[in-house]
């Protein structure tokens, strides 16, 4: 989560300085504890993960190289998306990380489908699938359909619900009418877990239990955490709609500072150790940006403009 914060600070400054980043920047500041706590429970090369907008921390914890992030934000021809898609829309589906589309809730059924096929082919074992959603995304039909389907199939799916109080600018009060999104778990017939979204220890405990339950045949799990997004929807947004009292409430706590205090209090890592991590992180980030920055940008004349893998069915292709 420390590295994630540093990556995102860098992405924000690259965005504001103009020029290098193509398109928007969407950050997960304030949600790192919640996101990373899921990512660290997953095993790269075994589990499947469909991260969403504010999951830089979860991506790093899962094992996504920083280069994938910077290559995609810079739109280089070398990254997994090769300039064809950008920013948070990156992934390597064959390696277990799905590439989200912008339509919220749509990934729930796709992750479920991967698990479904594994069960069909006898390769499910104790693997799990996980994906994320926000408070706003839970209002979509796709989310509902996906949760219901996963529950019917009793597949090992973990869905993390980050209730960061605002879907872009729309507050919870205009998004849903139930008291707590956790209540929905019971309606779907899945196990629900509540964690303190700003507290890494609480997040780790909740996700560890949820992932273990899914791995051992407990069916879909839904983990809900509440926190405040410590920034705008994207870096273009000053989040002026977030009231002062929310910023100063317990939801507005910075999970990174909370985690640092916990680490020090429990004698797990001193402030000096954390500063050391920061320095290492800076080096990793600088190296990744330097490499991505040297790499070629996509060339429209070399681009294969074909949306089908069966090339003889691509219209207008002469071969």
């Amino acid at each position, binding site marked *: 989560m420390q590295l994630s914060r540093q990556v995102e600070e860098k992405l924000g400054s690259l965005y504001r300085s103009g020029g290098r980043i193509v398109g928007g920047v969407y950050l997960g500041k304030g949600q790192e504890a919640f996101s990373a706590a899921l990512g660290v429970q997953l095993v790269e090369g075994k589990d499947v993960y469909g991260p969403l907008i504010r999951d830089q921390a979860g991506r790093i914890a899962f094992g996504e190289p920083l280069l994938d992030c910077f290559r995609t934000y810079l739109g280089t021809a070398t990254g997994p998306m090769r300039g064809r898609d950008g920013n948070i829309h990156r*992934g390597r589906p064959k390696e277990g990380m799905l590439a989200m589309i912008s339509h919220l809730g*749509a990934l729930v059924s796709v992750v479920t*489908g991967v698990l*479904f096929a594994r069960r*069909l082919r006898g390769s499910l074992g104790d693997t799990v699938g996980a994906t994320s959603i926000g408070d706003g995304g839970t209002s979509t039909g796709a989310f509902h359909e996906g949760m219901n*389907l996963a529950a019917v199939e009793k597949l090992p799916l973990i869905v993390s619900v980050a209730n960061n109080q605002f879907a872009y600018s729309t507050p919870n009060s205009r998004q849903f009418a139930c008291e707590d999104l956790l209540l929905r778990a019971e309606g779907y017939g899945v196990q629900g877990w509540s964690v303190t979204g700003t507290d890494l220890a609480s997040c780790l405990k909740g996700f560890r239990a949820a992932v273990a339950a899914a791995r051992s045949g407990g069916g879909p799990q839904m983990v809900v955490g509440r926190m405040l997004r410590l920034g705008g929807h994207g870096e273009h947004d000053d989040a002026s709609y977030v009231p002062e009292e929310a910023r100063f409430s317990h939801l507005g706590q910075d999970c990174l500072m909370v985690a640092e205090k916990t680490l020090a209090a429990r004698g797990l890592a001193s402030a000096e150790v954390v500063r050391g991590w920061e320095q290492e992180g800076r080096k990793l980030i600088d190296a990744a940006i330097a490499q991505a920055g040297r790499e070629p940008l996509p060339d429209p004349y070399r681009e294969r403009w074909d949306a089908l893998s069966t090339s003889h069915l691509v*219209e207008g292709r002469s071969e």
Partner: protein
Amino acid sequence: MSLTYLEAIREAQYEALRQNPDVFLYGQDIGAFGGAFKATKGLAREFPGRVFDAPISEDAMVGLAVGAAIEGARPILEMQFADFSSVGFNQIVNQAGTQYWRTDVPCPITIRLPSGGTPGSGPFHSQSMESIYAHYPGLVIVTPATVEDAYWMLLDSVELNDPVMFCEHKFLYYHLKADSLGERSLPIGKARIARPGRHATVVTYSAMLHEALKSAEELQLDGYQIEVVDLRSVKPMDTDTILASVARTGRLLAVGESFPWGGVTAEIVARVSAEAFHLLDAPPMRLNSKDTPIPYHPNLWKSHRPTVTTISDAVRRLLRY
């Protein structure tokens, strides 16, 4: 042996399941019940654990298929009616249609769409969706008009490493019969001259092929030889075969059952106008359904879609020019 168009679709699914353990069927009521039209009759029993009932969740059904395809499976989805695929539209065009291009991972899924009008089916059980889906990149749209094509093109679709919208016409389900399934002949992407002629070309597909062939019979009594082209797949569209036919006849009518604004017939006319303007002896024409929802009562329905009469009238206008 005599086989209906619907039975051919069932047989193709049987064969796909038999040939490849990665194939599975997923759709509403398709398991023990055998599907609303019985296109999967008995398959759940013959292939235990590979034919699944789905909840009424077209969006999640397609999402599940995409995820399964990423993992190496080859799902065949049944939409109970093509009309309901609009609920899964986002997953079809944005998830399945963009998957390969965005991530380099192919998306081999086949979505069966029981399409088109039948008497008494009304606005929400009669739609033809081929024009809508053809508009989006990353999808293959097949529209079989014969029993043989229903069988072979469904098997071909399952083998393709791309998402295929398999538009099977409900009007042909029961009364279109063939003595045998023949042999695999033309691949997806190739059109067929269903009837040779020299005075005008009618390009069409799916159930409208049979209306066009009847119209050609009728016009022959007046001494006109009408060439009828069966597109078989509307995307990719076999422009070469269309142009070659227009080169022979100099006149073009494109006939389709979907709504008139834009779509497959407009695409045919646009391509011929742009690429073979000099071959045309008359302005190219197109004929589609009317621009209203599809009516319930057979009296209205029969006038809503193109018929032998309206096709013949259009061809006569084309010939008089």
